[in-house]
């Protein structure tokens, strides 16, 4: 074997699906870019938005889908039912759309308590009412006991994008400000704490909520929104890296401006996790011209779910397509796309 043999037997390529393929990091990104995007290649897909925006007889229709497999099914601040509605509503809102209609496909495991299903369905109903969307079609499948995890929910959604709204990574410009609508990492830590049986003095409550009113508030305020994202899997770190790659710009985050609640920050310190990579389920990341940042923040803060809105960084004039973090000490480092899901450290 020559020294330059690239088939090093110790290097382990993936020949089966790993949990990291769904972790929101680089491994998932690589799967999407190497297998899914080329297979289904078309302009709407390649725009890489949270939802596809389609021209339907001159009207811009946003269309998206999302599957929900969260375990545990109930967590502080929400459950899989409302999450399934908000998740899809939020993807539509981030495409600039007004969410209208959702589908609901249930994959149920044999033996699931009907009372629990009824509770989750009622959660979905209430969430839909809150978002002003109708669940207009659906599907129900049951799998053998042991072949599912109680309930999996898929929702798809459509909404109309009002004329003149054009958002996405390609609209991001040097000089844009980066805003978030509230503190980060709550959902990821809330689920982790229940899943792993971690007891904290102050329980972490998920931020699970719709963001369509926050998005609408920005449009109403008349600011020029360039890009919207909800930082779910992989958190803020993953979302910013995706936007840096797709816009081919350098983003700079100011660590001291990033809002993280005390319970989330403490739990992260304890477990060796970074809140910037923890999932949110009710937050909005906004890109818009820096001079309009104050007006946008004021608009977000007028809503209760936007009370903690903050400007956390900006898009630099030029540079490589990545995200840098300016630390509290004034030093600079990369804020990288994580590899897979974060693992708690040893000591």
């Amino acid at each position: 074997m020559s020294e330059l043999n690239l088939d090093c037997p110790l290097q382990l390529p993936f020949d089966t699906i790993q949990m990291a393929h769904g972790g929101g990091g680089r491994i998932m990104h690589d799967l999407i870019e190497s297998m899914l995007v080329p297979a289904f290649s078309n302009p709407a897909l390649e725009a890489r938005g949270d939802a596809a925006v389609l021209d339907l007889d001159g009207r811009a229709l946003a269309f998206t889908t999302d599957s929900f497999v969260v375990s545990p099914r109930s967590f502080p601040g929400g459950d899989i039912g409302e999450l399934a509605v908000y998740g899809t509503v939020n993807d539509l809102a981030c495409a600039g759309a007004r969410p209208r209609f959702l589908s609901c496909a249930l994959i149920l495991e044999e033996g699931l308590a009907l009372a629990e299903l009824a509770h989750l369905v009622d959660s979905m109903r209430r969430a839909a009412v809150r978002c002003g969307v109708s669940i207009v079609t659906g599907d129900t499948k049951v799998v053998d006991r042991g072949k599912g995890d109680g309930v999996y929910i898929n929702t798809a959604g459509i909404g109309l994008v009002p004329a003149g709204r054009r958002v996405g990574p390609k609209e991001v410009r040097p000089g844009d400000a980066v805003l978030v609508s509230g503190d980060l990492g709550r959902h990821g830590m809330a689920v982790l704490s229940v899943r792993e049986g971690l007891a904290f003095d102050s329980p972490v409550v998920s931020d699970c909520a719709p963001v369509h009113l926050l998005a609408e508030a920005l449009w109403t305020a008349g600011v020029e929104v360039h890009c919207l994202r909800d930082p779910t899997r992989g958190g803020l770190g993953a979302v910013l890296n995706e936007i840096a790659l797709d816009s081919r710009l350098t983003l700079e985050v100011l660590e001291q401006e990033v809002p993280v609640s005390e319970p989330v920050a403490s739990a992260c310190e304890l477990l060796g996790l970074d809140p910037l990579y923890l999932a949110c389920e009710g937050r909005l990341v906004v890109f818009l011209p820096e001079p309009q940042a104050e007006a946008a923040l004021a608009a977000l803060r007028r809503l209760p779910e936007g009370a903690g809105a903050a400007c956390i960084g900006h898009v630099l004039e030029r540079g490589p397509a990545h995200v840098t973090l300016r630390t509290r000490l004034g030093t600079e480092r990369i804020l990288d796309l994580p590899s897979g899901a974060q693992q708690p450290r040893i000591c």
Partner: protein
Amino acid sequence: MKFLDEYRDGAAVQPLLEALRRRTTRPWTLMEVCGGQTHSILRFGIDQLLPPSIRLIHGPGCPVCVTPVAFIDKALAIAERPGVIFCSFGDMLRVPGSHSDLFRVKSRGGDVRVVYSALDAVQLALREPEREVVFFAVGFETTAPANALAAREALRLGLANFSMLVSQVRVPPALELLLASGAAQVDAFLAAGHVCAVMGTVEYLPIAARYHVPIVVTGFEPVDLLRGILECVVQLEEGRAEVANAYERLVPSGGNPTARALMAGVFQVVDRTWRGLGLIPRSGMALAEAYAQLDAEQRFGVSDLGGTDSPLCRSGEVLLGILDPQNCPAYGTRCTPEHPLGATMVSAEGACAAHYRYRRPRED
């Protein structure tokens, strides 16, 4: 956040930097022993704040990185067995053995679970009497006391279905090796604060004296790190070589006698192979005779299993501070966190992983 913010505060850091600038007259090379310190230094950019003549190099103190391939292979072989629940700290799961890693074993049906403490694995064994529960006990003197407690608890409960795969390591013999080999030119050491919280400082006295090198117990937050660095520089500039404690807020000079007694009762000191470094005399801990029945190597007949490192992986040189991760030819190309050649690229405390995560040069 109490006990953290005040140690990350820019205003608290400034006087220390000012003192460092004032006291430094010559170039000095300091090694931070612990991988947790390496990550803090790169995460907070501490190295960017230092006078240019002070160089920090990374040391061998990453428990995941030094766990030998043979032990990973043993872990994989045990985790593949039907009926076994294999419990591990989370950041061991991606570490490559000869042919696989624990995540891949899990994806093929192995029951691999992340636990936060060895006692969680004992509880699991109690709840699942029909299953064999195995805990992967790795780490330095920091994890050893809690792991020892779990072993003691398992014996007390008479758990026949609990065992431990033990690859514990000790810091001082590795420092001795490093100094004796003369591999890296290190002027002073930042000793690993949390190891000293257990062990105290007494083990370092003969090393500091024999090699005339300052050894300063140092913490992990910016203020703690800078206090350790300043103490090293002051000693070096004054020609002193003493063991000092710059992490008094956590480390009593006597360490934690209760924890040490627990360790001494459960573990015995043995020679241990370190991944990338080779065999280091008296550098490991294994289960003592009285706890031999908990030995997973014996129970599952994997004692003779053993693999070898990738010949392309130069983690040994990285762990000795000879090779900067970014100067390794495989860094970022053939070796990435997704496809690591060695453990230094995957562990949350590995130097290669820290550089990749915080400093990786990017192509434009």
